[in-house]
């Protein structure tokens, strides 16, 4: 007699490989005191054995490690392959470079995780509570100070300082002194400019100002300063540095922390959901530092003459014969830099939390661990910067001119005839810019926002493509400037004037996205690499300085995005016009359709 069972019942009955444990046995039974009230019981900390900890940590680490590997390795591989195949040179210290690259990957991994655990909690708490508790002037003061703090903590700032060591004091005295004796003041001025940009950007959120007049008002004095500096033979060398500073500031620390505060202020005022909130600060934070650096350069030029600087530098190099302290030589220097970059920001955030907000710190242990990780990551990253990124960028940069011209110390140079070699060098830099930008994770996020903001008219793919194209062309243009040695302002003034014209023609959404996309492209890997490459090319060509590539890489995407935005709007308008033409809908038909 066959009997029917439901398979589900059967399976539950035999319980294949299942073990049933009552949750009551795992949890302590509630205890009541004599009045019948619950006695709260502190549960003990869960203990895990080695295997369990391994299983827990492994996926956590591998996800983060692979995330950084994906951004660093393709770039490094591309550089090495280019060096071997096109330039036919073997990297001499490949062990050091591999180690340096590993340090960059590990350092960024620790740094980003530490940022998430240790600094972002401050940012979100302060961003959401401070604007509600404190009067606006105090909030803006905190924003200003925060702007300074985050600039010091930005990993790419270290690359700028490292660049100063290779500048010749005789050829470019003001550039030399800005990057050496005045380097502290330089970072301070950049930080102050970022702070001011954050304040203005926040005010913009609050009062709903348009970004366009702000861009005009920042650009006009900027272009005047550029021309003024470029026509002064002593200050000419500072132009590239000033413009590159703008690209360095908008990195992984500044953008999220400053945005958290800015958006917090806007939403506390009930203006947080306009869709455009969050945009604009990055733009201003990459324009204002340029003004700041120019002003500092003019100040220095009024107080010091070139002769004084050269004399002081010679004096200093003579005095430096004594053994430098441990924190002045690598690797001690990198570690000291790392600690000095993060600690002031952390102390400032903590003081704001304790003294102004009087809020307790949640998850204290986790936050302190995160801060430790951030500092550790910064130190390792700085080491990797010196031995990996800057070295490989500088090496390749130094070799590029060998493709088309005679360079001392390199056999077989020129490797190719002039035209071919030149084309190869420019093509190489173009592909490098394109690939590095396509891989940038922050750009993906911007792409999603843009697609939402423009109701799908501006596709994410279009944005990715046009930004990458812009960066690629910008880097090639910057390299061409180094190779042919024409002044940077020939490139900057026309492109920024074009950008202003496009800003005038474009709608507010596209203006916001386009100007912010420039800040997104210059991350902690691209900046040192491109900077080092430029300086390498510069020194191989015996040029005065190798700055200027980065700033071309930030104006490129601005122009490219606005042009493709105008094109997308033009096409959408054409489609709409065609649709109207094809289907002449009378008003009565339309009314019927609605019914």
């Amino acid at each position: 007699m066959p009997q029917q069972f439901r398979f589900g019942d059967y399976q539950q009955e035999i319980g294949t490989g299942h073990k049933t444990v009552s949750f009551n046995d795992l949890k302590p039974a509630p205890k009541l005191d004599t009045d019948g009230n619950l006695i709260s019981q502190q549960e003990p900390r869960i203990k895990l054995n080695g295997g369990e900890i391994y299983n827990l940590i492994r996926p956590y680490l591998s996800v983060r490690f692979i995330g950084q590997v994906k951004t660093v390795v393709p770039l490094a591989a591309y550089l090495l392959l280019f060096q071997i195949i096109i330039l036919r040179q073997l990297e001499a210290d490949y062990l050091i470079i591999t180690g340096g690259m590993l340090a960059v990957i590990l350092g960024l991994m620790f740094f980003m995780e530490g940022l998430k655990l240790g600094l972002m909690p401050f940012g979100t708490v302060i961003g959401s509570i401070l604007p509600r508790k404190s009067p606006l002037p105090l909030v803006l003061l905190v924003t200003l100070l925060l702007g300074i703090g985050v600039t010091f903590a930005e990993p790419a700032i270290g690359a700028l300082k490292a660049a100063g060591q290779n500048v010749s004091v005789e050829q470019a005295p003001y550039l030399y002194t800005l990057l050496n004796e005045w380097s502290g003041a330089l970072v301070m001025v950049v930080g102050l400019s970022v702070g001011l940009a954050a304040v203005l950007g926040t005010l913009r959120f609050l009062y709903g100002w348009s970004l366009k007049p702000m861009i005009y008002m920042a650009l006009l004095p900027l272009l005047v300063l550029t021309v003024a500096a470029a026509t002064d033979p002593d200050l000419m060398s500072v132009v590239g540095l000033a413009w590159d500073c703008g690209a360095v500031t908008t990195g992984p620390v500044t953008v999220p922390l400053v945005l958290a505060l800015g958006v917090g202020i806007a939403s506390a005022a009930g203006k947080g959901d306009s869709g455009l909130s969050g945009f604009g600060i990055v733009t201003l934070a990459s324009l204002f530092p340029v003004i700041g650096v120019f002003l500092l350069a003019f100040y220095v030029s009024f107080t010091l003459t070139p002769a004084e600087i050269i004399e002081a530098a010679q004096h200093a190099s003579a005095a430096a014969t004594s053994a430098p302290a441990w924190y002045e030589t690598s690797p001690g220097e990198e570690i000291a830099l790392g600690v000095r970059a993060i600690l002031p920001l952390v102390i400032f955030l903590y003081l704001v939390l304790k003294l102004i907000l009087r809020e307790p710190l949640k998850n204290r242990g986790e936050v302190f661990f995160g801060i430790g990780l951030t500092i550790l990551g910064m130190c390792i990253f700085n080491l990797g910067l010196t031995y990996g990124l800057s070295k490989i960028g500088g090496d390749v940069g130094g070799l590029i001119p060998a493709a088309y011209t005679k360079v001392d110390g390199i056999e077989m140079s020129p490797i190719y005839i002039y035209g071919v070699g030149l084309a190869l060098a420019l093509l190489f830099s173009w592909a490098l810019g394109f690939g590095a930008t396509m891989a940038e994770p922050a750009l993906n996020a911007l792409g999603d926002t843009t697609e939402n903001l423009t109701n799908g008219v501006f596709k994410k793919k279009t944005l990715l493509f046009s930004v990458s194209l812009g960066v690629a062309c910008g880097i090639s243009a910057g390299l061409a400037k180094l190779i042919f040695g024409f002044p940077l302002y020939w490139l900057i003034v026309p492109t920024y004037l074009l950008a202003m014209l496009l800003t005038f023609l474009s709608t507010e959404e596209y203006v916001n996205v386009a100007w912010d996309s420039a800040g997104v492209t210059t991350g902690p890997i691209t900046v040192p690499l491109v900077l080092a490459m430029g300086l390498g090319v510069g020194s191989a060509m015996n040029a005065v300085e190798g700055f200027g590539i980065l700033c071309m890489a930030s104006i490129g995407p601005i122009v490219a995005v606005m042009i493709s935005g105008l094109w997308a709007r033009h096409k959408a308008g054409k489609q709409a016009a065609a649709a109207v033409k094809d289907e002449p809908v009378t008003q009565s038909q339309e009314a019927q359709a609605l019914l």
Partner: protein
Amino acid sequence: MTILTDVSLITCVVKQDMSDAILKAALEAGALTGAISYHARGHGARERLGLVGIAVEAEKDVISLLVSSEQRDTVFDAVFHAGNLNVPGNGHQYITPLEKVATYVPEDMLTRLAKTKQGA
């Protein structure tokens, strides 16, 4: 109104990036009729593990699956393996018996059901 009985609700709480794998496994086990997934933040284990707790992702995806009581255990098994729920930090799932579910059932399904009932 058509009322469905013998329905169970399987709720899976997994790491943020795991929801696609869970949904795929549920589809293969034949359970993808009433699935919703939403984003959530988890608490508890992270706080009680000390320093190791940072490896437990707080960002979670919650997937609700409506299954017939016959499918219940096969889907439960499939989700368990797809989500690697025997590894610490990967999440948990539970089954809730549902008394009634009301929704639209396609005509074709109802007529076929009536035919098989007649035949039997």
